[in-house]
Structures are given as C-alpha cells and as structure tokens.
C-alpha cells in the first residue's frame, strides 16, 4: 500500500468498516487565520474523514450565498494562497493521515502560477484538488500536471453530464468522484434519496473510484440517507453557516465541530442493519 494515496487508504479503510466517509468543507481563512486553523485542526477528532479546504475567490460563480460570504470573510481577513498552504503544513505537523483536498476556482491558482502552486501544494502534503472551472477539456492546464506531482484531481459529475460524456470526464480523474445530484449552486436543496441511488448506480458502471455526494446536505439524518448509497457525503454550506452565525470565534470553532460530530454519527447509522 506504499504507493496508495492518502485518499485511497482512507476510502479502503472505510470500505472495510462498511461506513461512508464524511467529507467536510470549510473555506480557508474563514472567519480569520487563527480561528480557521483551529477549526481545521479539530475536524478529524470531531469525525471528518476527508477535509475539503476552500481556496477563497472573489467571484465564486458555482457557490450559493453561504460560501460566497465565507470567501469574502476570508479575503477580508487577509487570506492568500500562501497562507492556505501554510495552514495545511501546520495541520500536517499533528495529523499525517486525514486527506486534505483543496477546492476552489482556477484564477487564484493560475495567478499564483499553476506549476508553482502544484509543487507547493504537494510539498505541503495536500492530497488533491477540485478546481470547479477546469473541465476535462482543459486537462492539460492542471489536472495532468497535478497527477505528475502526486496530487489527486477530483471531478464533479452533474445531472447534465450524460453517459456519452462520462468517459471523458472520468478519464483522468482520481481520488473520488464528486457527484452533484441537483443543478444549482452550493447550499441548494437536497437531492432525493431515490434519484441518488439511481444516479450512483449509473456512475458505478463507469468508474471504480469512490463516489461522494454533495450539494444541499445539511444534517445527520440527510447525510445518513445519502450515505446509505454513496461512498462519501460532503457537507459544506451548513458548516460554513455555523461560522457565519457564531457570535465569537470560540463559538464558531465549537459549533462547527459539534455539527461535524452529529454528521459523523449519521455516517455510522447510514448502513446500520445493511451490513
């Protein structure tokens, strides 16, 4: 297993446990560097199996109001790509097993210098990237170079991705497949469980990669319902809301970790009785 990535190891272990992974999204630097770092550090203990760490961007066109505001808070507090990578390095001093995936838009990466960013991310022990606005048509921009740096490159499969397009979409994908079951921005309505089962079944015909379902999942009950069928459940906007509504940084840290604990409990219930 020496060559297996952290993500591969994580999903293999969870498969053995027959439990779906809890993937948590928070925006790096939201609401400020110190608080965000404390939230990040506490996620694994609270029950996060995989961490998606958002690279804030001024114009997040695929995000709803919650994550838009998170990006603004982070940017106003002075977050940069360099600081995001610094946070990952700090996190890795205490945790060498929980995969961290950076998620964001291409421009901040491009401006940093795509090659330099990939190299710095790999050195900071980032495990993979999700770049919303880099479709497979632009794989030579960052997806293929990322793989050369040992970084996984996750793809989103959406309701508009038809069977003809899946081979192209999945061709260079690694890590896991991020399955979005509703059209819309982050924080929209939750998908219904029946269509979830069908969509995942179709995706499995095309890939052996683990399938994570995200967009619109807010609580433990919903997470358990979706996790019954998927290999992972992604929760983002609901966590980011904990930070927005917190009256103090300390409250933000505690309430975010509490929600993760509840969600993790949902993951344990997802397949109860079906093992």
């Amino acid at each position, binding site marked *: 297993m020496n060559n297996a990535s952290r993500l591969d190891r994580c999903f293999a272990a969870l498969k053995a446990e027959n439990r779906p992974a809890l993937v948590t999204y928070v925006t790096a630097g939201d609401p400020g560097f110190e608080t965000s770092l404390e939230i990040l550090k506490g996620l694994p203990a609270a029950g996060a199996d995989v961490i998606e760490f958002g690279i804030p961007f*001024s114009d997040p*066109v695929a995000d709803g109001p919650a994550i838009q505001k998170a990006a603004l808070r982070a940017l106003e507090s002075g977050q940069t790509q360099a600081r995001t990578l610094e946070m990952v390095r700090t996190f890795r001093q205490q945790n060498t097993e929980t995969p961290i995936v950076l998620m964001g838009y291409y*421009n*901040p990466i*491009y401006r940093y210098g795509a090659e330099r960013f990939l190299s710095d991310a790999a050195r900071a022990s980032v495990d993979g990237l999700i770049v919303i606005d880099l479709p497979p*048509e632009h794989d030579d921009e960052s997806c293929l170079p990322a793989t050369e740096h040992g970084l996984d490159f996750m793809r989103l499969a959406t309701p*508009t*991705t038809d069977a003809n397009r899946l081979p192209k979409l999945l061709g260079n994908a690694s890590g896991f497949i991020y399955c*979005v079951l509703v059209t819309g*921005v982050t924080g929209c309505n939750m998908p219904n469980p029946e269509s979830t089962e069908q969509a995942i079944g179709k995706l499995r015909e095309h890939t052996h990669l683990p399938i994570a379902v995200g967009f619109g999942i807010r609580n433990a009950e919903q997470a358990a319902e979706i996790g019954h069928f998927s290999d992972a459940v992604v929760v983002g906007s609901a966590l980011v809301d904990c930070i927005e509504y917190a009256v103090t940084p300390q409250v933000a840290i505690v309430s975010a970790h509490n929600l993760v604990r509840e969600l993790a409990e949902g993951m344990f219930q997802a397949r109860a009785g079906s093992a």
Partner: protein
Amino acid sequence: MPQYSMHLDANGLFGRFGGRFVAETLMPLILELQAEYDTAREDADFQRLLAYFQRDYVGRPSPLYFAERLTEHFGGAKLYLKREELNHTGAHKINNCIGQILLAKRMGKTRIIAETGAGMHGVATATVAARFGMSCVVYMGTTDIERQQPNVFRMKLLGADVIPVTTGTGTLKDAMNEALRDWVTNVDDTFYIIGTVAGPHPYPAMVRDFQAVIGREARMQIFEKEGRLPDSLIACIGGGSNAMGLFHPFLDDDMVEMIGVEAGGKGVETGKHAASLNGGVPGVLHGNRTYLLQDGDGQISDAHSISAGLDYPGIGPEHAWLHEQGRVDYVSVTDDEALEAFQVCCRQEGIIPALESAHALAEVAKRAPTLPHDHLMVVSLSGRGDKDMVSVADYLGEKSQ
C-alpha cells in the same frame, strides 16, 4: 490563409486566450450551444431569418455618416460615424440579441436570462424576449440600477424581471456572476444571452459573428462613398463587442489601423479604471482566459468608469489575443476626456452619444487633429446617450462647483 480573422482553435482558444473554463454542469450546455450554432451558421433559412430581423426589426443597415462638422472641428482626419445608435433600442447590442434569440428558439428554450451594465444589453434582451414571447430575467448590479434608471424602467415595460445584484460593487461583473448562477440552476429551459464577446466558447466567437454585421456594412459603405478602405477604425471597449464587430471584417487588411479604447476612469495610474489590457494581467474569469484587473493573489479587482457599460474588469479574449499580436492598438481615455468629447459631439453634430461611445470620440479628439485630411477614420458610435442624462448632469454639476 487569413492571418488574424480565422485564428480560433477547436477548444475555443485564440492563442492562449478564451477557452471553456466553466463548471461541469454548464459544460454540456455550452457544447450543445456550439453544435446548434455551427448548424445554424450553415443554414440558409437561419441566415435569411436573421437578415430579415436585422433589416425590418433592428433597422439595418445603419448609416455610415460623414461627420462634416466634427471633421472641421478637429481639423484633420475625415471622420465617418457608424451609426449603431440608430438601431432599434439605441445601441449595437440588439445585433447580437436578435441572433441569439433565434438560436434559443431553434433549441426550444423558453426562458431568457442576461446580465447588463449600462442596461443597453438588458433592454435589447428584454426587447427580443418580448418579440419572441419568452420570459426574461435580467441581472443588474445595484450601483448600475441607480445610475441607469431609465433603462431599468424600459426593461420592466418590456416585461422583463430586473433582479438587483448587491454582491461586490453591484456592477457588471457581479451581474454576470448571478446570471451564471441562475444558468447553472435552470439548465433545462433557460438560454443565457451573453451581451459581449466574452464568456466561455462559443460565446466570444458567436457574439462577434453577430456583431460583425457592423464591420461588413461599414466596409461596403466606405467603398461606396470613398472607393477605398478606411485608414483607421476606432471603437470603445468594455467587453469589446462593438469593437470586435467593427474590426473583424478588416483584420486581414494590413493597411487598416485599428484602435480599441478602454475606459481609463480617473486615470490608469490611479488604479481606478476599467482598462484591462492597459492595467491588467492574464487570468481566468467568467469562462475565459483574458486580461483581468486583479490583485497579486488572483482576486478580481473592481473596475471604475463613469460609463456603466465599460465598467468591467475583463475584456473579450480575442481582443487579448489581438493585443499580444500587436494587430490592434489598445489605448485608454479618462472619464474627463470622455465627457469632453461627449459634449463636443452633442454640439458639433447634434448627436448625443452614449458615454461608452464618447470614449471612442475622445480618442478621435487626440488623433484626428494630427492626421492628414485624406485619412479616412471610421468611428463606432455604438449607442445613444439618452440613458446617461442623469450621470452627465451629476458630473457636470460636480465639475462646475
């Protein structure tokens, strides 16, 4: 092989600019649009229909008018104005909207969305949506709503829902963000009519093709009047659709000089401007790679211009490419220079230009006096200025105090 006019590759790239940098949800929609456009372009019935609406609904061809008094005023180059402000709805924007709505109809779409800055594209979109019986939602920043009230009311009269966008600075960039969020949510019935030569491929090339009617007409008209090609072309640039429309049919004519005029706001050196080529660096936004106003960390900066239609931190990718090729000269003029030219045009020609077009006229004011009398200069008068009365009154009041 044409050197400049046929440079687009299969991935929608002009050199390194352009492309299709969109979320996966939109990717199949963009590919479908491209396929439909490729078919329509070769379809004689579509072209006939487009020509019919351009003539009888838009009012084309627009005149190429010899601006005798402006020519005398500046005392140099012979000036011709391409009168796009005489089109239905008062700007060049409808050339593109009529083309895109015919495509939307072919594709069976029933709901139209658009972004708007000055409101001219919003009005043109609301107009064609009304004509074709489609519902229409226009996203407009709150700053622009305030400074372009007459156009907001026009859109509402035409049956469009104008949705105020409060994010960012409440200008064109933010309106485009919201329109993209709408599109990614309503993928089945919705057609997004982008108003300029930006966005993911095929928009930059498609909008250019619909706007190229400006340059094709100007070319024929100048031959009729002068029996030869013009020496120079001048147009203002926000996203750059009127400029691209005028320039494109002349790109391979080496002897025709082209000048694109960006909005210099309070001056490029102040940082308060909208001159992406003169004050920006390459980046990726709204589906394409182009020159953008941004900070060192890739966060998009706010643009500043008295003209709402030019108040955008990016520029069409084909312009970015032409800039690097050196084929087109991109310059900038300030708010003050544009306002001065605005007033000269009003008084010399009895034409109230849009503040956008006044930027082109301001560059004319700089160049024309230095050029010989036999220098033929074609200027895109992209829109009329009725919408700008409040902005201009405020500005002149401020200056006189």
